[in-house]
C-alpha cells in the first residue's frame, strides 16, 4: 500500500496547475464573468493537453491514464474555477467524435434534470426536449432544466466522482484564499489570522479539505460506488462550507461581486446539484452499512 501521489501524478498535477494558471488566471476568470461564453480556443488547448482524452488508450489518440489521474486533473480545474461542461466532455471522449481533441463540446443531463451550457454545446448526452432556461445563480454556468426528469435517476458514478474532484479543488481554493486573507488583512493592529475565531475557521477549512481529498482519491483508486458516494458527500461539504467560511473570513469584501469567493460558492452549489440528490447518496451509504453489518 502506498496511498500517496506518485512522482508522475505529482508532475501531472503540477503541469495542469501551471497550464491553468497561464491560460485561466484570475484576470481571464474575471473577464469571463463579464463576458460569459465558452472559449473555444481554450477548449481546444485543453484537448491538446490531454484534458479530455486522458483516459483513452494511446492507440485511440488518448493519453492512456486512469481515473486517479483524471481526478487530479479535475481537482485543478475546480481550483481554477474553469468553466464549461468539462466532466461531460471528458466522459464523452472516445464515444463522441471530436470530444477528446476539444473540437466538440459535449454536455449532459445531470442530477435533477440540470443541463449546463446547453446553448453552447455541440452534443448533448441525455434527453433535453422541453428544457427550460434558468436565470443561473452562477455567472459562469448557464443552466437549463429538463422538466419532469426523474429525481431518482442519478448520474453515473464517474460523473459524480469527477464532479467531486472539482469540488475538492474549489475547496482547496477557498482554503488558500481564506488563509491568504487572514495573513494579510490587519485589524486591531494585527493580522486577523492571529485571532482565534478566524484561525479556527481556517483550521476547519483545511480539515474538511484533507478529509475530502482522501475520500476522493480513494474512490478514484477503487471506483467503488459506495466510496464514490462517500467522496461526494465529503467534497460537497468541503466546497460549500469552505466557501461560506472563506466569505466570513473576508468580511464585507466577501460579500462583494469583485472578490472571487462568491464564484466558488455558486459553482459549488451548481456542482452539488449536478452530482444528483444528496439524500440518494446518504441512502445508498445507509443501505450498504446494513449489508456490511450483516
Amino acid at each position: 500500500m502506498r496511498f500517496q501521489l506518485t512522482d508522475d501524478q505529482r508532475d501531472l498535477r503540477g503541469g495542469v496547475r501551471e497550464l491553468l494558471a497561464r491560460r485561466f488566471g484570475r484576470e481571464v476568470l474575471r473577464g469571463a464573468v463579464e463576458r460569459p461564453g465558452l472559449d473555444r480556443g481554450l477548449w481546444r488547448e485543453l484537448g491538446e493537453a490531454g484534458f479530455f482524452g486522458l483516459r483513452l488508450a494511446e492507440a485511440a489518440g488518448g493519453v492512456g491514464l486512469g481515473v486517479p489521474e483524471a481526478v487530479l486533473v479535475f481537482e485543478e480545474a475546480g481550483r481554477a474555477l474553469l468553466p464549461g461542461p468539462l466532466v461531460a466532455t471528458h466522459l464523452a471522449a472516445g464515444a463522441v467524435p471530436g470530444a477528446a481533441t476539444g473540437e466538440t463540446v459535449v454536455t449532459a443531463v445531470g442530477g435533477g434534470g440540470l443541463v449546463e451550457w446547453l446553448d453552447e454545446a455541440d452534443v448533448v448526452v441525455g434527453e433535453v426536449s422541453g428544457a427550460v432556461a434558468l436565470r443561473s445563480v452562477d455567472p459562469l454556468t448557464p443552466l437549463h432544466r429538463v422538466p419532469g426528469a426523474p429525481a431518482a435517476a442519478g448520474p453515473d458514478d464517474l460523473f459524480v466522482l469527477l464532479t467531486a474532484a472539482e469540488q475538492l479543488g474549489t475547496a482547496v481554493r477557498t482554503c488558500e484564499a481564506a488563509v491568504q486573507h487572514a495573513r494579510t488583512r490587519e485589524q486591531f493592529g494585527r493580522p486577523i489570522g492571529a485571532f482565534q475565531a478566524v484561525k479556527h475557521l481556517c483550521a476547519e477549512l483545511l480539515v474538511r479539505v484533507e478529509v475530502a481529498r482522501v475520500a476522493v482519491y480513494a474512490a478514484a483508486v477503487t471506483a467503488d460506488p459506495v466510496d464514490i458516494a462517500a467522496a461526494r458527500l465529503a467534497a460537497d461539504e468541503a466546497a460549500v462550507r469552505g466557501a461560506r467560511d472563506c466569505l466570513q473570513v473576508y468580511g464585507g469584501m466577501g460579500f462583494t461581486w469583485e472578490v472571487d469567493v462568491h464564484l466558488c460558492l455558486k459553482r459549488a452549489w451548481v456542482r452539488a446539484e449536478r452530482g444528483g440528490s444528496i439524500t440518494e447518496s446518504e441512502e445508498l451509504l445507509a443501505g450498504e452499512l446494513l449489508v456490511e453489518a450483516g
Partner: protein
Amino acid sequence: MDLSYTPEQEEFRARLREWLVKALPALPPKPSPDDWPGRRAYDLGWQRTLYDAGYADVHWDASPTMRLIFLEETETAGAPYVGANFVGLLHAGPTIAAEGTAGQRDRWLPSILRGEEVWCQGFSEPDAGSDLASLRTRARRDGDEYVVTGSKIWTSHAEVADWCELLVRTDPAAPKHRGISWLAMPMDAPGVTVRPLRTLAGSTEFAEVFLDEVRVPVANRVGEENDGWRVTMVTLSFERGTAFVGEVVACRRVLGEIAREARANGRWDDSGVRRRLGRLYAEFRALWRLTQWNVSEGEAPSGGGPGAPGVPGVPGVGGSVFKLRYSRARQELFDSAAEVLGVGALDLEQPWVVDRLSSLSYTIAAGTSEIQRNIVAERILGLPKG
C-alpha cells in the same frame, strides 16, 4: 496512489488472522471495569501473549503499514486493545527508544514488550493543562538524584503503574519551555501518593498524583537536563499520530451494530435516522482513508525517525487533522446510538450508553480540539500566533 497490499503484507495478515483464531479463545474472562488489579493483569497478560507469539514489538519495529494491518486485524477479531500498556507501548516506550541511552533502552523497553511493567503519563498539572509548558512540579538536583515535589492530575492508570513518565521543572529561572526535564519515576518511590478521581462515567480512569520530596536518580532522566520539552514533543506526536487506528475499525463495527439495532427496533424507518447513519458511515470510511494516507506518508523515506534503529518515523502534525475530525465523529457515533435507543439511552445497562459518556473526553484528552485547531492553523497553515 495504491491501496493494495504487497504479498508480504498479505501473508503477515493471513498469519496473524490464523493465530488470532487460536489465541483469542484462550483469553481469560474480561475483568470488570472497576477491578483495576484485574485489568492490569489482563492487559499485561495479553501483551505477554503477543510477545510469546512474536507480535509484541509491532508498534515499534514494524513498518507503519504492518502496524496498520496488525491494529486492523486484532480489532476486527475482537482482541483486547493495549489498555494499561498504552503509555508504555505508545508514549514512553517510543520516547525512550528515540531519545534514551543504550542502558535506558535495555532497562525499560524489554519489560514493556514482555508485558511486565505498566507506565503512566505524568504531564498535566492542576495549573498546567493546555499550557503544559507552564508546569511547576519542581525537581531539585541533589548529587546523583533529583528531589521532586509537586502534583500531577488526570494521570490515567496511575493506580496500577510501575513507572511514570514525568515532566518536571529543573530550571525555574529559564523561559518556560527551556527548564523542563523528562524523568522516569518509579511509582513505588517514597513520597508518591495516588488519589483516584471518579470520571463522569462513574469509573476511576485517572488520578491525582502528589509528589513530596520524591527521590529519582539522575540516571532516570531521558534526554538532556532542561531539554525535556523537545523530548515531550516526540512523545506527543506519537500520541496524536498513531493512537487511534484500532478505534476507527471499532467505530465502524459499532456503527453497523447501531444500524442493526435501528432496523430491529423500527428506528430505521425514519429517513432522518437512516441518512445520519449513512453520513456517519461515509465519515468513518473517510477516516480510514485518512489513516491509510497518514500511514503511507510515514512510510516515506523522509519520515524516518531519529535515534535508535527500528523507531518508526515521528508522525507529523497531520495527526491533529485526524484527531480533530475523529474525536467529533466518535461523539456523533454514540449520539446516533442514543437517537436509535430512544429512552434506552438513559439506561446505563444498555449498550453504548457508557461509551457515549466516555466519548465526551475525546475532544479534551491528548490536546483539546481548540488546541488542535491552533496547531493546524499555526503549524500547517502558517497563521500568526495569537
